[in-house]
């Protein structure tokens, strides 16, 4: 699987298929048993600031304020950090500790923290998975808006089909055990994308196709558990 610069790829799969592991291997947090990851031709051996990551769990450093968290990365600068805090709508909360923030605000801070370090690739591991539906939809639009402006390369792991279609320029469907990419689908929805697209005819067509693909995998994964 090759990922081009400025691409937004969603990795879609049933739970337990190894999509998070794939992302962690790209981040350098896990070591692959076979195969390798190349970034601009260089093999990935360990985590580095060129691959920023947002986790599903809340990973803000609880002893640092919002601003200190965003400034944590080795390449973050105060000017960039302040701009990003404003961008994710947290101006006025710079001096709050994470425990004072809602889940959505924490993930927005985590997104700003990853972006402030100016990574080549942004890795997102179900970052909105723990959020309620309304917050999740707003976060999707926020992230999409940032991507449409900056065109960072993004790898986004999710099991939510709507989320994958709405965000991605390409969706990769992963199969369960052995986990590999079994299907790729280019999403030709125009940018900037608006949330009303989620009810459009094109969207429904993509959704029907992906639902079928995922369903087969989910059944296989469920059968293997017995």
């Amino acid at each position, binding site marked *: 699987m090759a990922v081009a610069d400025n691409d937004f790829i969603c990795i879609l799969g049933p739970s337990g298929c190894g999509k998070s592991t794939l992302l962690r291997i790209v981040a350098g947090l896990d070591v692959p048993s076979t195969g390798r990851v190349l970034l601009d031709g260089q093999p990935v051996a360990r*985590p580095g600031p060129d691959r*920023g990551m947002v986790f599903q769990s809340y*990973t803000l450093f609880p*002893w640092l304020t919002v601003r200190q968290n965003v400034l944590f990365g*080795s390449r973050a600068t105060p000017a960039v950090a302040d701009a990003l805090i404003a961008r994710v709508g947290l101006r006025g909360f710079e001096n709050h500790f994470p*425990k004072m923030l809602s889940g959505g605000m924490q993930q927005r801070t985590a997104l700003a923290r*990853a972006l402030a370090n100016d990574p080549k690739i942004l890795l997102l591991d179900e970052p909105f998975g723990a959020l309620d539906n309304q917050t999740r939809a707003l976060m999707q639009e926020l992230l999409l808006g940032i991507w449409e402006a900056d065109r960072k390369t993004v790898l986004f792991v999710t099991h939510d089909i709507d989320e994958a279609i709405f965000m991605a320029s390409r969706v990769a469907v992963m199969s369960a055990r052995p986990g590999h990419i079994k299907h790729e689908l280019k999403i030709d929805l125009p940018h900037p994308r608006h949330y009303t697209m989620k009810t459009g005819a094109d969207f429904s067509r993509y959704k029907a196709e992906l639902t079928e693909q995922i369903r087969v995998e989910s059944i296989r994964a469920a059968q293997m558990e017995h």
Partner: protein
Amino acid sequence: MTPLKPVAPGARVALGVAFFVLFFAAWAAATFGGYVSATFLADPATMLREGWSLLAVHGFIKDILVTIWRVLGGFVLAAALGVPLGIAMGAYKPIEAFFEPFVSFARYLPASAFIPLLILWAGTGEAQKLLVIFVGSFFQVVLMVAVTVGNTRRDLVEAAYTLGVTDRGIVRRVLLPSSAPEMAEILRLVLGWAWTYVIVAELIGSSSGIGHMIMDSQALLNTGQIIFGIIVIGFIGLASDFLFKALNRRLFPWSLA
């Protein structure tokens, strides 16, 4: 009563004070009522009178200060050496594998059993008192700090790595700040234990300190002074605990629920 239901702040204080009152009332009833011989248990009034004479006539303040100095000295020594070793063990697993079995064994050696040996080695002076507290506190501090540091949330460590932090930076920027409040809590706990060790050390072969006064009073059958000494220890413990808690709240406002 509903389980886990909080009690109003006013009622909480009233209940706490009520037990103190009840305790002293029972004590007063037992002694003033003549149910217990004055030889074995002084009444509260005698205790206060003896306490006053201790402070005014016998220079008990000096004993109190000596004991506080010993506790702090032994505690600071144990913390200064134990905390860094605990951090190293918690952060680096080979170091933990090297020290952990011995420290786990040593923590069960009772500090009081070392007193005869320590008197042999260090005499009956200040060095011996500090060593008793050190032996009692050091291994506990090491183990508890190692566990705390080792339990640092892995996802915070991983997040730091993806932000470009180096291996040494992980210790300084993640492991230390994330376990700092618990380390302070461990030190507060161990300081409480240090008070037990110092009194034991002073009961045997000492010429000053609260424990020494208690031994002297026993020889004179002065239970009033003994009880006064014990109560003084209790109050100092309470005060130091309160100060420690207040300091922790100030230092780590982010960790409060």
